[in-house]
């Protein structure tokens, strides 16, 4: 490495470290505001619950106790720990997600790339897309066996955002990049793999993030209707059934946290991948 280059390298690292310091301080402030807002929210909830004094609106500490207890005691209906319910829900989401991903990405690439495939696929997609996944529950319960009945609902929730974002991502690719690839010897056959797919990854990740959020909504709704094998959605509905509202809220909070972690994780990965790929 010659002198000029190493100097440039140095310049780069200096530049980055400067940003880091400023960023860390900003981050601390942002985090502080967020934590404060959560505390205020919990206090307001507690106050309101005390004023209402109704079992169906338990106070935060009761919900917290129920939440902790749920991890160490089996529930009386399915004899499962909360950990097992979480696992059951996650497995369903995972199945739905994997199947949605495997189908939506290639289909999205093709629909974005080829007018004919788009013309063929679009009316069907646009007809099915507005149907809320939850509307498919009665069908799914009869048509599929556990865990694919619930996974199917999740699949529907994730499939469309991933598909639409993939199509959008392909259409958004600068045509000049395609031309450049052609002059570099890329043929029709490896264009998808070498150019279209990598170019689409950041938009695709956005689709995944949105899809996972919808996935958690779907899984709870699906599990609340006649499901075997437990699941957090089941836990919520069973506890509501017998009037144990503190446990019900505990289940709801579990869903909230899981959704937050999954979507937060996905958006972290999304940012990391975009940055790592040098896009955005």
């Amino acid at each position, binding site marked *: 490495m010659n002198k000029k280059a190493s100097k440039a390298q140095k310049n780069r690292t200096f530049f980055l470290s400067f940003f880091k310091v400023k960023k860390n301080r900003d981050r601390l402030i942002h985090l502080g505001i967020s934590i404060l807002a959560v505390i205020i929210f919990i206090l307001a909830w507690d106050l309101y619950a005390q004023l209402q004094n109704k079992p169906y609106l338990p106070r935060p500490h009761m919900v917290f106790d129920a939440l902790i207890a749920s991890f160490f005691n089996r529930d009386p209906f399915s004899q499962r720990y909360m950990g097992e319910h979480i696992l059951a829900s996650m497995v369903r989401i995972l199945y739905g997600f994997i199947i949605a991903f495997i189908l939506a990405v290639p289909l999205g690439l093709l629909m974005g790339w080829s007018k004919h495939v788009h013309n063929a696929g679009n009316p069907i997609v646009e007809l099915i897309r507005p149907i809320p996944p939850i509307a498919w529950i009665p069908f799914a319960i009869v048509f599929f066996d556990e865990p694919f009945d619930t996974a199917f609902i999740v699949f529907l929730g994730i499939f469309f955002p991933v598909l639409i974002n993939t199509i959008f991502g392909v259409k958004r690719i600068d045509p000049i990049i395609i031309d450049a690839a052609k*002059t570099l010897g*890329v043929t029709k056959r490896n264009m998808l793999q070498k150019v279209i797919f990598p170019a689409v990854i950041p938009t695709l990740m956005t689709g995944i993030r949105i899809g996972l959020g919808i996935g958690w909504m779907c899984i709870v709704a699906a599990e609340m209707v006649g499901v075997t094998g437990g699941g957090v959605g089941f836990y919520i509905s069973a506890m509501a059934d017998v009037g144990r509202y503190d446990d019900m809220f505990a289940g709801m909070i579990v869903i909230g946290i899981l959704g937050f972690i999954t979507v937060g994780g996905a958006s972290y990965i999304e940012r990391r991948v975009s940055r790592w790929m*040098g896009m955005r």
Partner: protein
Amino acid sequence: MDGNALIKIEHLTKIFDSDDKSVSAISNLNLTIEEGEFITLLGPSGCGKTTILRLIAGLEIPSEGIIYERGEKVEGPGPNRGMVFQEFALFPWRTVIKNIEFGLEIQGMPKEKRREIAMHYIDLVNLEGFENAHPNELSGGMKQRVGIARALANEPDVLLMDEPFGSLDAQTRNIMQRELLGIWQKTNKTIVFVTHSVDEALYLSDRVVVLTSRPATIKKEISIDLLRPRDRAGKEFAKLRHEILGEVEEEVTKAIASERKKEES
């Protein structure tokens, strides 16, 4: 056919047909480009320069006429005609070195070998130390160095350069022009260069082809026999500049007039 003609363009015509109108971009253009030549296509903005390059590259299909490369009809894009774009057109998800390796990777060359070749071109375009940077971390000049190295790594017969320095500042532009000449001399490549800067054309080329306003045909061909490195402030340079500027300005005026006429009608 001429023995050392690399590219031969015969009766080239290009008409863009869209739903509501048809634009005639090139009309009956004939041109022969010699092996190893640095030729510049010079013309007013919008006259069809890019279209000619894209036709040579095989990215567009002629409406009429034929383009030969080494006696063979051009029927689509291929790695033996490398292109450098004004907008750089780098792959943003690939690092500098992976951008440069791209063509070799497509050919299926083993990893170590293409690394070696890519490093050679990184050296040639002075990008040492930036191998693993992504395009969005680079300045415009550096991006275009990657663009040039990427096109060269495929070892094409001809390098088609469409206003490659058009978006760079004047200083960088001058540096890049000088370096390009160095690269050209080292690699003995044929270069077809497009610009609307008379100065740039004069500084770089063996031959300047002045194009008419749209639809483009050849207005005048001028051989530049000045020794390199050329002195932009020199007398000969100034004389040639004056001559070519006259030709170009005539076309610019025509172009503006025809625009006006269109607006009026």
